[in-house]
């Protein structure tokens, strides 16, 4: 089922949580709502589910207005951040709940319910734990019970609120790959909320980056990562270094050095914000043509395949650079060395684009 969100507004008292938001989600898609806490992503999810009402705007499920439908008519499955399993019911009873509460006419027989629950338990790989209580399960197991419970009513849309937020790193990674595979298997339109960019980029078909109640960018993980539309997205997706430059006569300057960049030079004299990813830098021992600054090495973290080097540039600002292990060995740099940094790739935003995104 496709979802069409049109001009949704939502206030909580004085707080403007969602500011006229439009979004369309295709049938069978797995979409991530990504953003910092307080950006309105969970509110949007709850509005889609019907747990929260929008002040204005409309939501269409397969072209049909859903805003006046109550929760049970919307046929959504919802997985809560803290799972919200029924504590006093076993795993089996939790999953069967949605089927058991149906009106007599629509309720499946006991055998059918049993069959359905066991097939779901098999799907989430918890067959042996059917008679456990939620308190006897690990976080990852609870998560999967919550998912099975949501799927039991055969929802047209599956909504997940920070589905992996409460799990430890290892389980988290496993479960999100598993969720991706599960989605490929059952193909139900799914929307999940996360503040973890890695999670969004790895799992989702499309990522919706949100900030302050608005959408910053919608795109495939590759699009939003390699071609961020706004400074916010640049900041939010991955580490990035920001340099404050300026435009004079169509040329971009950082300090007194001119910097080559791909953006057109129509811009009048203006402030410029130069974003450079840590791995788009190279370190040299001597001054190069494309050097933008000299820098003193503050700290080197030699773990992993890339070496993270923290430096202080000539503007006294911290810079993070990542270079491959081989390059690091070749350079033979150590703490307190003076080096020169050159970007291979930059992204420039000009004044009007920029807002203060300190989170």
């Amino acid at each position, binding site marked *: 089922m496709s979802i069409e969100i049109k001009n949704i507004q939502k206030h909580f008292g004085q707080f403007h949580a969602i500011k006229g938001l439009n979004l369309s989600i295709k049938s069978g898609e797995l979409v991530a709502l990504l953003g910092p806490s307080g950006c309105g992503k969970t509110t949007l999810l709850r509005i889609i589910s019907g747990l929260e009402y929008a002040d204005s705007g409309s939501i269409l499920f397969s072209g049909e207005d859903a805003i006046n439908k109550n929760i049970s008519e919307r046929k959504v499955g919802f997985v809560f951040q803290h799972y919200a399993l029924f*504590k006093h019911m076993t795993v089996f009873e939790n999953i069967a709940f949605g089927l058991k509460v149906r009106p007599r006419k629509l309720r499946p027989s006991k055998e059918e319910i049993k069959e359905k629950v066991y097939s779901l338990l098999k799907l989430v790989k918890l067959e042996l734990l059917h008679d456990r209580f939620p308190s006897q399960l690990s976080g990852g197991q609870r998560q999967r019970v919550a998912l099975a419970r949501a799927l039991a009513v055969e929802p047209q849309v599956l909504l997940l609120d920070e589905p992996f937020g409460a799990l430890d790193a290892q389980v988290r990674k496993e479960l999100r790959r598993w969720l991706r595979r599960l989605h490929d298997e059952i193909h139900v339109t799914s929307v999940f909320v996360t503040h973890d960019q890695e999670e969004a980029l790895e799992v989702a078909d499309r990522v919706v980056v949100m900030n302050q109640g608005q959408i910053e960018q919608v795109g495939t993980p590759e699009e939003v990562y390699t071609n961020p539309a706004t400074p916010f997205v640049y900041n939010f997706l991955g580490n990035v270094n920001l340099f404050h430059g300026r435009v004079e006569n169509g040329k971009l300057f950082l300090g007194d050095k001119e910097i080559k960049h791909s953006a057109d030079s129509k811009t009048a004299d203006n402030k410029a914000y130069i974003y450079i990813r840590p791995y788009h830098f190279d370190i040299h021992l001597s001054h190069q043509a494309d050097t933008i600054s000299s820098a003193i090495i503050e700290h080197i973290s030699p773990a992993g395949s890339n070496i993270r080097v923290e430096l202080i540039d000539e503007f006294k600002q911290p810079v993070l650079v990542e270079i491959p292990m081989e390059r690091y060995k070749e350079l033979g740099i150590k703490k307190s060395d003076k080096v020169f940094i050159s970007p291979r790739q930059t992204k420039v935003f000009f004044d009007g684009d920029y807002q203060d995104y300190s989170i």
Partner: protein
Amino acid sequence: MKRNINTNETPFVRYTLITIALSFIFIVLIVPLFSVFYYALDKGYDTYIASIRDEEALSAIRLTFLTVLFTVPLNLIFGVAASWVIARFEFTGKSLLTSLIDIPFSVSPIISGMIYVLLFGAQGFFGEFLASHDIKIIFAVPGIIIVTIFVTFPFIARELIPIMQSIGSEEEEAALILGASGWQTFWNVTLPNIKWGIIYGIILCNARAMGEFGAVSVVSGHIRGLTNTIPLHVEILYNEYNYVGAFAVASLLTLAALATLVIKEIVNYLSHKAGKE
């Protein structure tokens, strides 16, 4: 038990404090408790039983149970509804409602009784209306029930509000999304979660409803065999110098209190066990 020298008091201080606490409890609680049974059985077992099986005593016992029978269920319904509303919704006047619930705790029971006399008594606000329709509330059973409801009405609500607030509404939302109706959600999800709080509140409410003296005394009119509850009957017997009778009937209330205490402990134990599972 191991003792950390740095954080614990010296033995002298500890034993002094323990002695003070224990002797205080002994003098103020234990001795009176035993004296009730001592005086009740002063003239032998037969007199004790006879005092309890006295017609007026039995009538007082019946009236007390009748009062409890009305008070506890009504306060249960009110308590669940009020705590639900307070824990789940934001509305204007919520903090006012929360403090209103506490009024019976902060007002002297005598005054609670007076309020109802002023409202429903012959000279009261509704007095004429009630008289013309031949309805008797004050100096009759309905008055006793009404003031008892008033006095005991915070117990269940007070017990449930923090429980409902700490549980939160996620499980209920989950049930609604799974297609459960409001009633199914309450019955299958909310109620099991607040079960122990309800039982605990009922125990406290029941204990107070049985033992309430002040407010009931004002509205009852002390008509023997008609509007005397157990506490009022005890007072009458005592004022007539019938000490054995007074203590015998009082011993019933004491036994009820002890039973309440035991049940309370059992409930506490069970609910903690259930919480740990």
